[in-house]
Structure formats: structure tokens, C-alpha cells
């Protein structure tokens, strides 16, 4: 009595009810007009039930919010918990700061989505069409202007202005002038640096130049200007800020937009197939602005005297005290800043597409939506920046010295012995750098690229750890530097010289990866936090200026990645050597 039953029949009987309908019933019949011509079919708009709407929007919003939560919340929690547990001090204005952090997350969500929908399509179409349609000088011009535009649109650049409010004119007049009345010019010069880097990076793609000589050629004027600034006690206070600018520039707007143009040029000239195309621009874009800003400092010094600036600052102080116009108060400052950051870039991109390329904009509706998101996101981000991240960073930075020194407002400080406290402060800075770098999504992407480029010789996890280790050490070194108030140049010159030596020894691949990794690691969350932390730290210790931590965080990973690269090369060389020897001995055996 064993009836044979096919398992397939059993399985289909057990599954969900399947109802079959013929697809013929669903597809439209083609309509014909009076002359017998076929009319193109226009599908009707779909109306969504609320449940469907939720199911469509839920993953869309979820994925994007979680992405930003991951980069912001651990850092903010780390700072807050460190303050509570190690420094035993409550977070003042906790409510305001939490609100600010939420605003940062929300702003980043909107901004990144807007960037993807609104600005990236422009960048891509310019990247692919422009090099094919326009002559090289036109492309260079566009690249130069694009460099300026993207710098203004970079979210982290707002952190510089926010940092400006923490500097006093009496202590460092030129620094104050650059960050307050001259901040527009400062960003402009950074932008010109980025633009020139884009142009040079593009030429590099076309003529297949090696990155090494370009690095040397940029380092010589950079270090030369550094020495010049060092010779003047007033100007030397701006060194930290100038070198920090390099790390600030390379963010989520600059990198993809400039890269897409560069890769487009490389593809149009038929040189796009080298595995390294795409690298190098980030390196140049973080070195050139340093030079540009230092030149600006020298120009400023030749036109204005410190006394004039201090006078000007006093006037500005009085203006702020009288509350100024409505557009000089938050949140209007941030709102106007957001518009000023995005709108010129959009207009420039539109101009290039419409006038230079004579292309039409596809999906105008979605692009507009993206641009609106960008502006709204930027405004919310800027508000969050000044109320959340900068405040939190400044507060923690200001309190950390309580571990080893007497800080006004902290009961019982120094909390620990000098040496132990110093170690705690160093460890705090190190873990801040290490953790925030590992969380940076751009680093993960770089790791994957590098692993494929080197055929697995350079593992993704190894690269990520090397970079994060370098950033951690850099931030720790930058923080401790302020404790002893050593000149930043003492740190910058030897490390960059060492980097140059290591560069000479390394192969082209590792040089590209190592120098780019420095720019990749400093995203829109890390930069403001670290900047504000440094300034707060600088204010509570005797340091003359709180800048310079970011520049140390840039050179750190260059050194670690180059060293790890050299170690891998050595290992591969030894392996090959051993194989050759084995081959020799085998031959001897045979003979």
C-alpha cells in the first residue's frame, strides 16, 4: 500500500497558494490614432497604498540613516563617556549637544542622498562628455573652477569657520583674520589649490606621469614656505591651520566629483586602463591647498599689520555684542552658508552642461529634488555642526587636560598624576583617531580597491588597520605636542622628509595608495570633531594654537602605509629569492 508521490508535487502542495494569470491580461494593447499610426504607450502613474508606501520608503530611509548613525554615534558616545567616566565631569548643555548631533546625522543623510541624486549625475555626464567634446584647455579650465566650487560645497569646510570663533585676535591676529573676516578668501585659496591639483592630476592621467616626482615637487615649496613662516613669530601661528586645510578639503563632494572628471579624461585619451587611474588626485588635492593657504598668509602679512587686525577684531566684537542684523545670527548664518555652499556649484555645473556641452539635463525632476536635499542637508548639518559636534569636541578637548594639569572649572584637577594623566590623554587621542578612521566608509572602499590592485598581497584589513593606526598615532602626537607647546614644524618637517625617503624606496602602487589614504580618512564627522577638540585642548593648555592635529593625522597613515608596503615588498622579495635558491639546489641535485 505504498502510493508513489513525487516530492515536487508534495512540495508545491505545501507552499503558498499560487494563482496563475496570463501576462497577456496585464500588458497593454497598443492604441492607434485616426491615421492608423501606433501611439506610444504611456503607463499610468501608480498609486501606492499607505502600507506599500511604508514598505518602499522604510528600507530607503533606514539604510541611509543607519549609515550615518554608524559614523556619528560611536564617536559622540566615546567623547561623552570618556568625559563622564575618566574625567568625572558631566556634559554641559547635554540636551543642546544631543540635538546638534541628531541634526548632524539628519543633515548628512539628506546631504549625501542629495549629492547622489542631484550633483553626481552632473559630475558623471561632465566627466564622460566634456573630455570628448571640448579641447584640453577648456577641460582644464572647467577642472580648475570645479575645484573651487566643490571646496565651497564640502561640509567639513564649515568646521573651519566654526573653529574661527574659538580663536582670539589678541593671541594670534593673523590666524583670527584668516578665519573670520578673510574666511571666504581662505576657502577660495583652498579651492584654487584643489582646482590646480585637479588639473595636474588630469595631466598626470593623460601623460602617465609617475606620482613620485610630483610629490617631491610639491613637498619642496610646501616645506620651504613652512620654513619661511617659521622665521616670523606672528606668522608661525598660522602653520597649524594651513597644514590642517589639506585634510579638510578631501571629503565626500570633492573626491567623487573631481575623480569622475579625471577618469573621464583618462578614458577619453585612451589611457584609462591602467589599474592606478583614479589615484593621486586626492594626494595632490590635499597638498596643494596647504601651499595656497601659506601663500595667502604671506600675502595677508604684507598688506595688514597685526595691530590693524586687533583693532578690527575689537570693532567686530562690539558688533556681535549689539546682536547685529538678523542675518548674522544663528540659525540664519547657517542657512545662508548652506545656500552659498551649494548654489554656486550647481549653477557652475549647469552652465558647463548647458552652454559648454549643449546637453540637456536628464530627469530634471529628480535632479532638482536632489539639489534641494543637498541645500537642506547642508543647512541642517551646519546648524548641527555649531551646536553639536563643535561644542562637544571643544568641551571634551578642553577637559582632557584636566587629567594631568589644573583646569579651571574641574574640581580636584589634576585628576591623575602628571605622567599617568598624560598617558590617559594620549590614549584618549589615539583611540579617537583609530576608532573614527576604522568607521570611515571611504576607507573600507579604499581597502577593497587596494586588495584587488595588489592581487591580495595587501589585505584589506591590513590596510585599514595600518591607516587607522597611523591616524591614531598622528592625533596622539598632535595632542601631546600641544601639551608641551612644541612648534608643529618640528613634527611636520622630519615626518614629511621621512615620508619622502620611504616614497623613494617604494614602488609606484604603494606610493599612490599610501599618499591617497591620508586624504580619504578625514570625513565630515571626524574633521569638525578633531578640529574642535584640538582648539578646546589648546585653550586649556598653554599651547599657542589648537590647530595641527589634523595635519599630523594626515602624515601618520602615509608613514604607516608606506612602511607596511615596504615590509610586504621585502617579504615578497625574500620569497622569490628563496624560490630561486630552491630552484638552484634542485638543479644541482639533478646534475
Amino acid at each position, binding site marked *: 500500500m505504498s502510493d508513489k508521490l*513525487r*516530492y*515536487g508535487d508534495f*512540495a*508545491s502542495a*505545501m*507552499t*503558498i497558494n*499560487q494563482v496563475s494569470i496570463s501576462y497577456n491580461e496585464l500588458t497593454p494593447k497598443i492604441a492607434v490614432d485616426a491615421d492608423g499610426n501606433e501611439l506610444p504607450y504611456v*503607463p*499610468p*502613474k*501608480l498609486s*501606492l497604498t499607505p502600507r*506599500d*508606501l511604508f*514598505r*518602499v*520608503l522604510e*528600507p*530607503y530611509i533606514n*539604510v541611509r540613516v543607519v549609515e550615518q548613525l554608524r559614523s556619528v554615534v560611536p564617536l559622540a558616545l566615546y567623547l561623552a563617556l570618556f568625559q563622564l567616566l575618566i574625567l568625572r565631569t558631566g556634559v554641559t548643555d547635554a540636551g543642546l549637544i544631543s540635538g546638534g548631533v541628531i541634526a548632524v546625522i539628519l543633515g548628512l543623510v539628506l546631504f549625501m542622498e542629495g549629492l547622489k*541624486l542631484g550633483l553626481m549625475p552632473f559630475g558623471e555626464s561632465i566627466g564622460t562628455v566634456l573630455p570628448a567634446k571640448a579641447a584640453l584647455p577648456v577641460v582644464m579650465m572647467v577642472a580648475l573652477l570645479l575645484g573651487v566650487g566643490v571646496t565651497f560645497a564640502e561640509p567639513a569646510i564649515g568646521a573651519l569657520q566654526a573653529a574661527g570663533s574659538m580663536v582670539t585676535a589678541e593671541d594670534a591676529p593673523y590666524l583670527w583674520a584668516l578665519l573670520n573676516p578673510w574666511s571666504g578668501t581662505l576657502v577660495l585659496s583652498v579651492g584654487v589649490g584643489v582646482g590646480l591639483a585637479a588639473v595636474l592630476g588630469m595631466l598626470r592621467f593623460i601623460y602617465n606621469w609617475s606620482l613620485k616626482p610630483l610629490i617631491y615637487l610639491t613637498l619642496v615649496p610646501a616645506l620651504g614656505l613652512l620654513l619661511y613662516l617659521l622665521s616670523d613669530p606672528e606668522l608661525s601661528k598660522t602653520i597649524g591651520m594651513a597644514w590642517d586645510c589639506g585634510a579638510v578639503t578631501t571629503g565626500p563632494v570633492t573626491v567623487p566629483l573631481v575623480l569622475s572628471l579625471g577618469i573621464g579624461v583618462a578614458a577619453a585619451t585612451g589611457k584609462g586602463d591602467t589599474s592606478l587611474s583614479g589615484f593621486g588626485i586626492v594626494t595632490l588635492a590635499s597638498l596643494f591647498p596647504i601651499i595656497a593657504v601659506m601663500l595667502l598668509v604671506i600675502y595677508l602679512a604684507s598688506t595688514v599689520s597685526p595691530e590693524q587686525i586687533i583693532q578690527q577684531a575689537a570693532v567686530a566684537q562690539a558688533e556681535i555684542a549689539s546682536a547685529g542684523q538678523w542675518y548674522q545670527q544663528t540659525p540664519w548664518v547657517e542657512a545662508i552658508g548652506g545656500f552659498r555652499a551649494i548654489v554656486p556649484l550647481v549653477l557652475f555645473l549647469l552652465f558647463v552642461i548647458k552652454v559648454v556641452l549643449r546637453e540637456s539635463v536628464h530627469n530634471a*525632476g*529628480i535632479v532638482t*529634488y536632489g539639489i534641494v536635499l543637498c541645500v537642506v542637508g547642508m543647512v541642517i548639518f551646519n546648524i548641527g555642526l555649531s551646536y553639536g559636534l563643535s561644542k562637544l569636541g571643544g568641551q571634551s578637548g578642553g577637559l582632557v587636560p584636566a587629567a594631568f594639569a589644573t583646569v579651571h572649572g574641574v574640581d580636584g584637577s589634576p585628576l591623575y598624576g602628571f605622567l599617568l594623566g598624560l598617558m590617559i590623554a594620549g590614549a584618549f587621542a589615539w583611540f579617537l583617531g583609530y576608532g573614527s578612521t576604522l568607521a570611515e566608509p571611504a576607507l573600507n572602499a579604499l581597502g577593497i580597491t587596494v586588495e584587488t590592485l595588489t592581487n591580495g598581497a595587501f589585505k584589506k584589513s591590513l590596510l585599514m588597520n595600518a591607516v587607522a593606526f597611523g591616524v591614531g598615532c598622528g592625533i596622539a602626537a598632535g595632542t601631546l605636542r600641544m601639551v608641551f607647546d612644541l612648534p608643529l614644524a618640528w613634527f611636520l618637517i622630519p615626518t614629511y622628509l621621512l615620508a619622502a625617503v620611504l616614497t623613494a624606496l617604494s614602488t609606484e602602487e604603494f606610493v599612490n595608495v599610501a599618499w591617497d589614504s591620508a586624504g580619504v580618512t578625514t570625513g565630515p564627522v571626524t574633521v569638525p570633531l578633531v578640529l574642535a577638540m584640538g582648539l578646546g585642548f589648546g585653550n586649556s593648555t598653554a599651547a599657542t594654537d589648537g590647530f595641527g592635529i589634523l595635519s599630523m593625522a594626515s602624515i601618520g597613515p602615509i608613514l604607516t602605509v608606506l612602511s607596511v608596503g615596504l615590509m610586504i615588498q621585502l617579504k615578497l622579495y625574500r620569497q622569490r629569492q628563496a624560490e630561486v635558491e630552491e630552484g638552484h639546489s634542485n638543479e644541482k641535485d639533478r646534475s
Partner: protein
Amino acid sequence: MSKREITVLTDVALITCVVQRGFADEVIAAARDAGAQGATTYYARGSGVRERLGIFGVAIDVEKEVINVVVSQDQLDRVFERMYLAGKLDTPGMGFIHVTALEKAATYVPEEVKEKLHRSVRRRG
């Protein structure tokens, strides 16, 4: 050297599922839990419902992942259903799934599995 032979598999079907970028892993996990032996994913761009949703169309990614899963006839309905549910394909814009009949397929089949099957076939015959 022994003569090489190919073991050809019959009663196979191909399930192809198109979902938005980033959703494939979940669908593949569901397929594997239902007994699918493996999956291949490739990237593509798609259009359709996105254009008809108006402003909500932005919530749907044009970048797609296309999942290919080869299953046996007996598994077909079960895997098909699990993939459909895991991909939430009953929501507009989430994706599409279809089945293609395959004539035959071949891949690595472990030696002992072949032995066992041959024996049972011989016993039956």
C-alpha cells in the same frame, strides 16, 4: 590516465531574481536556507515601476542586482516562494522573479555521491 567523463544533471531549473542594489544577500540567504546550492549575482540597471511612482520613485534604486540560482525541479517551488518573500516582491518596485527551464547542467559532483546514485539506479533497473 583515466578517461574524463561529464556527469550531466537533468531536472534543473533556473530562478532569476532582480532586486535593488544591496538586497541580494537577503534573498540569496533565503534561497540557500531552502536548499539552493549556490547563487551568482551580477549588477545591472533597471527601470519600470520607478518611473511610474512619481516623487517616491527616488526611493527605488536604478542599480539592480540580478541573482541566478539553479535548483532541482523538486526544490523549485519552495525556493521560488522563499526568494519571493525574502525579497518582499509583493511591494511595488522591489523586484521581479522568473523561472527558466533548463535542459541540462553540469558541474563538479563528488565521486562518492556519483557512486551512490549509480548503485541505486542499477538496483532499480
